[in-house]
């Protein structure tokens, strides 16, 4: 009988894991594996960001068009896997929270690993609730206490998720060290300021349902500012360069860093190359997927240095693989390209880019939350409480080369967020939904410049419609459809209307 009783060789099983310190650390590493996942922050979540009025899909693709036009079923291959992948992060966090507390390992490591687990569980719920949850239903709460149950139900209100996230993030903030204590090899892991930042972000959403949470937003933004880690805007007094330099490889972990998709030339986020010219002028396999609209281009105030740092237009000078060239594109639907993440392309390819054009990662870590968001969240929360928000808004404006304003209004705040965060996972679509502005914004078509000769940087252009007006129903489309397979596999209810 023992002849057929074999122990799996060459692999670890649940039965013989959770014994050493490195087991705990390796389990925590698994919390971040999704950074290299193309359907998550590798680039996939950009299909949702792409719903905003800042960009259009630069390719003919029925599935992504259905998402952008709010006629998706959730089954589209572009968007049908994120929901469950966020729960995979949650499962990994729960497994740590079950097993690590009783392990006899270095206390400092144990605290960090547990902190990472609490943080990443809340992080996953933050995006889940942002995309799929509302006042009609939250998302099933799975914790170390109930993870082995067979069925999970949706809470009646997303605020139940917020309560869970609040607990988790407070626990994480308690357990996690400051980012400044991390050595070079641990940078990128969750840290105390990131926990405060996600608390602020979470309250910002919660405040839609409970105005008392605006005060919490301010509180935790200030916790970030005052944590002692020195979080601050990059501001050398050179507005032409300062904003652009936030997205330089050397500033991956600058004072402005709070949480990013850590990337390198082997694995990580491919968004920079996804935004880069399709086929990259024959030099590198750019994918050319998302093109800035003329509306975004026109939105910037005169003198705002963020405009050039964010958008390339025909004739703009930029450096590509060591050579200066003038921008043109025969692929761009709008005549523009996002410029924000182009620094890795300035150098010879081997310096910052993955040589594999089919998986074009770079050394640039793409931000999820940066200090500018802390300032603008605080400003928004102050305005919503009828308090003066000039100071944080003007920090942002001055860094961009714009003059200070006084008596900043919600309209000022909204304009600032758009100018600051275009093409970032900060997600303008979510902002528009939050503010109740999406229906109006999307009722206008997106336009771009049709250049007469698309290979000529000096070519004249006419303005044309590149994406027709869309029908956004705020009662339905403020959340995305949960993928139908996940609905059938779990028995939970779909978001109403989808």
């Amino acid at each position: 009988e023992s002849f057929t009783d074999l122990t799996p060789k060459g692999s670890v099983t649940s039965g013989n894991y959770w014994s050493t310190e490195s087991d705990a650390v390796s389990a925590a590493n698994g919390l971040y594996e999704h950074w290299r996942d193309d359907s998550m922050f590798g680039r996939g979540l950009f299909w949702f960001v792409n719903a905003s009025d800042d960009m259009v899909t630069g390719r003919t693709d029925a599935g992504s068009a259905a998402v952008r036009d709010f006629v998706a079923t959730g089954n589209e291959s572009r968007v049908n896997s994120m929901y469950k992948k966020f729960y995979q992060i949650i499962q990994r966090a729960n497994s740590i929270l079950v097993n690590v507390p009783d392990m006899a390992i270095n206390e400092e490591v144990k605290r960090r690993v547990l902190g990472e687990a609490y943080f990443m569980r809340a992080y996953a719920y933050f995006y889940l609730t942002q995309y799929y949850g509302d006042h009609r239903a939250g998302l099933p709460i799975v914790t170390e206490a109930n993870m082995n149950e067979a069925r999970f139900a949706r809470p009646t209100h997303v605020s139940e998720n917020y309560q869970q996230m609040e607990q988790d993030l407070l626990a994480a903030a308690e357990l996690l060290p400051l980012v400044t204590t991390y050595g070079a090899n641990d940078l990128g892991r969750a840290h105390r300021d990131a926990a405060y930042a996600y608390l602020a972000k979470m309250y910002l959403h919660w405040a839609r349902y409970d105005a008392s949470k605006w005060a919490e937003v301010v509180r935790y933004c200030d916790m970030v500012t005052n944590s002692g880690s020195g979080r601050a805007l990059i501001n050398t007094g050179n507005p032409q360069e300062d904003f652009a330099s936030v997205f330089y490889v050397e500033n991956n972990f600058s004072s402005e860093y709070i949480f990013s998709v850590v990337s390198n030339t082997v694995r990580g986020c491919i968004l920079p190359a996804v935004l880069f010219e399709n086929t990259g002028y024959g030099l590198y396999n750019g994918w050319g997927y998302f093109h800035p609209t003329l509306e975004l281009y026109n939105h910037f105030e005169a003198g705002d240095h963020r405009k050039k740092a964010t958008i390339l237009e025909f004739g703009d000078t930029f450096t590509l693989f060591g050579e200066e060239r003038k921008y043109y594109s025969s692929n761009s639907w709008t005549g523009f390209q996002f410029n924000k993440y182009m620094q890795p392309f300035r150098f010879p390819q081997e310096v910052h880019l993955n040589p594999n054009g089919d998986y074009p990662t770079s050394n640039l870590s793409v931000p999820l939350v940066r200090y500018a968001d802390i300032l603008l969240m605080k400003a928004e929360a102050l305005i919503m409480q009828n308090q003066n928000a000039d100071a944080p808004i003007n920090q942002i404006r001055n860094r961009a080369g714009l003059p200070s304003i006084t008596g900043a209004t919600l309209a000022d705040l909204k304009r600032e967020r758009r100018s600051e965060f275009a093409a970032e996972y900060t997600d303008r679509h979510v902002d528009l939904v939050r503010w109740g502005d999406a229906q109006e914004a999307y009722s206008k078509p997106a336009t771009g410049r049709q250049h007469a000769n698309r290979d000529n940087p000096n070519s004249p252009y006419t303005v044309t419609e590149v994406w027709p007006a869309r029908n956004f129903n705020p009662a339905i489309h403020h959340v995305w459809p949960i993928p139908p397979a996940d609905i059938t596999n779990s028995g939970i209810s779909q978001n109403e209307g989808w």
Partner: protein
Amino acid sequence: LFATISASAQNGGQVRGTVMDNSGMPLSGVTVAALGADGTQAATTATNADGMFVLQGLQTGTNYTIRFSLIGYEVHEMADFTVRPGDNNSILVRMAEQTSALDEVVVIGYGERQREDLTTAIASLPNVATNVARPLTNVSDILQGNIAGVTVVSGGGDPSSSPRVLIRGMGTLGSEQPLYVVDGVPYYGGPINPNDIERVDVMKDAASAAIYGAQAASGVIVITTKSGKIGKPRFAVDLYQGWHQASNLPASLNAAQYAQAYIDASAHAGVVPADGHNAELNPWGQVTRTNWMDEIFQTGSITNLNLQVSGGTEHARYSSSFGYHDKDGLLINTNYKRFAYRLKSEFDLSDRITVGQNFYVNQMQSRGINTSSSYSGAIINAIYMNPAAPVYDENGRFHGTVPFDLAQFSAAYGDTYNPVALLKRPNISNPALNLNGNVFGKLEIIDGLTFKSNFAIDLNRYSYKRFDPIAPEIGRPSSENYLNQTESRTNRWIWDQQLNYHKRFGSHGLDVLAVYSAQKTAYESFSVEARGFEREDDWYQYIGNAGSTPNLPASGVYEDALTSAIGRVSYDFNDRYFVSASIRQDRTSRLAKENQSDVFPAVSGAWKISSEPFFNLPAVDLLKVRASWGQIGNIQSVGYYAYNIPLSTGTVTPIGNSGQLVRHFALTQQSNPNLLWETSETFDIGLDITLFNRLNITADYYTKKTLGLIQTNDADPHVGVNQGPTMNVGDVSNRGFEVTAGYEGQFGNWKLAATGNVQVNRNELLNLNGYSNDFIQHGDNVRSVLLPYRSEPGQPLYSYYLIQSAGIFNSEEEIQNHRQGDRLIQPNARPGDLRFVDQNGDGQINDEDRVFMGSAIPDFTYGFSLQLEYKNFDLSMLTYGVAGVKLFNGYKYTAYNAGLQGYNLDSRVLNAWRPDNTGSTIPVLSRQDPNANFGTASDWYLESGDYFRIKNIALGYTLPGRLLSRIGSQLRSRIYVSAENPWTITSYSGIDPEVGSTGLDVGNYPLPKTYTIGLSVNF
């Protein structure tokens, strides 16, 4: 046959003679008997190694009947033979090889039986010698069309692919390969040299296959290799040389047509065309320089050489063979090469003890190419690639879509690979070495009771090495070189102990078998990827020269153990009633301890009506009905550790500021300790008829149910794993009918043999009671956009589930009239777009409108073979046809669609819909696809894959034999010419209807037409 006669006239009269086969080879071991007028045996002897015999003790002047008999040959009788005095002359007898199926001996598991006594459904490959001379690489290719109930779905012409063999339909979504048994031992080794094959028997029903238990759920293919026979050494040389070509290849647009198509497509979509297509700005792009199809396809050559020497004495027999097979692919730089060596010997140590061994070593190296991806497939890239580009630039380097100095136009031509570079650039070496051998000892303990012990080993060594140089050219550039290297080894042993009792008591026959079998497999592999080689010379492409290894080496390990206890009892009475029952208990390491073991029974019986005393129809030689029922487990569907899934790991997560990746461990699949065997249960009722000793008919009706279909469930997403547990989720049914009819006859100098077979099979997924969803969505796709396959109860497995299309809108008015109530069903449509059917009447087209539309597995297959001999000429033909096949021509998604990255298109788009060409079936060319003409998984892609094909025609001539007195042997030679796949009828618009298992075609590697000339020499 003829005989020269002489005899002695004395009391001690004797008859001398020589017995040989039709080819003039002496036959040893022939029983020669002289029978008196009353039928009593007067004398008997056997031929010696030279085929000579002396019958002694005969009465001169008396008439005898002299009878010659040998297994495998027709009994030869010389009646009224008068023994004359004197012994100076001798008789020469030629014996014909057995052709009557009645006396044919069929291999059943752990034994043999005469075909007329079979109780189960076992079919045999006809015309083995002709079939192995065909220019085919795999044994399974040979089976196609030759055996009812065996469906061979070709994997196309890729030299590295092997076909998929389905016996009586698709039973599972997991792995189902028939078990190969070679010379009585389960075989998992390398490719079998077809020239070694003596016979092939296929066990189709559970009752016949059950003796092989858990590995035999999909049937068993039993191969018997050639053995030595008593006699002088015989040499056989078989050689053929062939040439093959692709046919029916698509053409792409030429450069000017390409540019114009995109200008038109841009105009239709209202966008500015790319400057690359503007003849004034880019005159270079208007000149056609390359026909990429011509560049990637070649006339390939096939060479096959086989040498065999065999022979034996009364107590020892041996056979040794060497085979060499070398084949070019249809696509340049694809090929297959095999060396095979077999040594087989057997020794009788005494009357009761026999020992023997069978040793087979083969080395195979094959180079295929990906043709099934619509991104990187070699054939589809030859369509995509800019025809204005030459293959090489002036420096002899691969050319990109545009030259470097016209890089500004690259965007017009898409992210296309140079297809010649795809085929030629990587340096690949992948030798697979297989060593397979067994030794056995057989002891006859008492009369009728034998014990046999057999130990087999199977060692596989596989090396894979691929070097990808830098690809600087414009299109899909890659700025670094890579070396991927994998080494793996599989070691397996099998030990069988077999006890067999066979006895006749008057009219009762009894056969009892007991077997205990154990086998164990250990697998280990590792692989490394290295990058950044400073130079790319052949001699530098070694791992030690790598610049870096960014990903850590990977390893793979498993062990697998199986034990089986088997019992079988067969009984027959009076040549009329036959029953057999077997039971097998299998125990596997792949399941949780408490579920490891299961028992699989089978029973079968036959009634030979033609042997009944009351039966009196002289024309009917055999009339037999038989029925069988049995169950078999399917081990192949079970993962090695399904009950205890290892944690997933990898060093893939970027953390830190220094470009490092860190290791993680995580649970990614749920385990299922409750997993049970997947079981297939077959009921078979059959009829065997032989008429006039010439016509054989076998008919079977069967139902085969797969119970407890094993499938990995989707997990509840909230559990947070990629995959749910592997579970027993449902049941599948295959029901069908098979008929085989064979005729053999001789008319003067003409000999004729014809065989036909038909098979009807109906596949249905019965239920998915244990599955997480009401249906299984399959991931097979075209560019992640079209996912046409679904398995749902009530439908065949792997059915197409598509939106129905109904032609093309010819006018705005037709679009306006296509509405549900006041709702426009296709608001984004314009004339020239596809009209889709709103099945559910909700006024819109979406996934809810999909309907089931058949599958790629044929409902009906038929084969016909013909053998004609006239004097020294022989002609053979084999045909094969399938019906009820649907193929998804996903090639059209990219090759007819101007809405993608700017790829060149199939020239058939010249006939696409235009206002002045409204009869077209191809939608209007457009740079955008708002109506989702192409983005919809619709039946516009679906085509009939039915075909009728002449698989092979061969014409041979046997040179008149002549005695080579000097070496005392005879030479026999045959030369032949043959054509493989020379002619096909199909309505399929793709390259070849044999596109592979699921029927998804994106420009897959086609089957070749092959013409060969061959020679075989025996002496």
